[in-house]
């Protein structure tokens, strides 16, 4: 079955004032979502990417240039990704549609992973 990657784009917003209660609720929603997918055997994994300290590398012939980025001030960063298993895009969309990320101001880029092997 094909794998799909959910790239979680997030608008960097000020979360510093969220209450402990709010924070607990957000975590609970994410856990409920991934638990639901896990129960159907649909989730393959996921990782959080650090918000700051990234590097952009660009090549010029046999040279390359490194710049820092994204910055915390960037309007949008990829916050992390999940990999899920689905029959096709329709199912992948359906499984992603209640990802709490959508509720909290982010958007999801859904991409099918090109299968390797024979």
């Amino acid at each position, binding site marked *: 079955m094909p794998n799909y990657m959910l790239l979680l784009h997030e608008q960097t917003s000020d*979360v*510093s*004032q*969220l*209450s*402990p*209660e*709010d*924070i*607990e*609720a*957000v*975590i*609970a*929603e*994410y*856990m*409920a*979502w*991934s638990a*639901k997918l896990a129960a159907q055997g649909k989730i393959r994994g*996921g*990782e*959080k990417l650090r*918000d700051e300290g990234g590097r952009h590398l660009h090549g010029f012939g046999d040279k390359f240039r490194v710049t820092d980025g994204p910055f915390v001030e960037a309007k949008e960063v990829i*916050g*992390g990704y*999940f990999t899920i298993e689905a029959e096709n895009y329709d199912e992948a969309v*359906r499984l992603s*549609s*209640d990802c*709490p990320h*959508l*509720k909290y101001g982010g958007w999801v880029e859904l991409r099918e992973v090109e299968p390797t092997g024979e």
Partner: protein
Amino acid sequence: MTDRVPVLSETIDHLFRHHSGQMVASLCRSFGFDKIDTVEDAVQDSLIAAMKTWPFSGVPVDQFAWLMRTAKNRCIDSLRRSSKSTSIDVDENFELRSENNELIGASFASEIDEDQLQMIFACCHPAISPDSRVALTLKTVGGFSVGEIAHAFLAKEDSIAKLITRAKSKLRDSGVRMEIPTPVELPDRVDSVLKALYLMFNEGYGASTGEALTRKDLVFEAIRLISLLAKHPVTTSPKVDALAALFCFQAARMPQRSDHNGELLILAEQDRDAWDKRLIARGLHHFRLSASGDHMSDYHLEAEIAAIYTLAAAYFSTDWRRILTCYDELQLRQFSPVRELNRLIVLGELEGTEAAYKRLLDLGKELSNYSLFFITKAHYENLRGESVLAVASLARAFELSDNDSVKRFITKKLAEITPQHP
């Protein structure tokens, strides 16, 4: 987006609030109460870090240890940055307390209680006003946000934030430390705490203002904190148990104070079987413990009134005589118009409508802006057949109330008085 996961906020157990309060207390004990701002920022950072990583990595087995480690590291980082010295004075037991908690189990739990008690004494120091004590305690010990506290107090977030900031700097200036007060100071310091908890409870319990959910949380936070005091061998006393008993008896009746539509129910209408039996049992436990020593505090009298109301098998079998005696004694000690109103309702049960109504009118000046006064007045006027007066009183009560369920209650009463087809 159809098929969304429902919001789970009703089912969560306030774990983060408790963790937050425990971490702030524990870190303040290690770094000093004067570092409270740094500590609070570090704790908040650790919760945000959890929110950003746990959805991907999963929730760690020992959540508290994870949060504590993160918060402690941030605290040390930020203290290093602000002071040039590289060595930070950390309580040497700190590592043991915060990170090996699964090894020490029970003693760790009592350490956490100890941290929190010290924090309660710091936040409820007599140097700051009772209101400030409540706000600060809710924030630092209870893990409530400024927004949630503002909700409960029907105040602006700005004013609560200012109140807390001023309270903290006052406490820092007074050199308040994290400690259980010495035996000499203890009685006054405990009184200062009890006064704040009494206010906190009433803020939550009172039917007049605020958002229902937050208010309920305030009630249970007050019970949690008084239980900490009652449990500790140094801070417990008959007075502490009396207040704990009062809280438990009152809170036990809370689920029945409104029906399933959120409409207010008066005591006579409430389903006594639906009162919280566990809280009643807890109340009785504290009530028994409070009956020692030779000092009868106001809390003892109030607990006794609550006990009689709560333990009566039915409304009509309430021991009004005994309740009246307690009210009389309280009023002798310090007269309160609002309490007098409650006393007169009891008097009405014993001596009839006329006796209560006559005295009620004398209270008119002092309670001229008190919605419940006019609701009670209307009740007696209706019983005396003076429906025009009763309607006017209810109209006044409506005007004075800022609470929707009270307003609906008044509307219901109005309909009962005014004939539908005149």
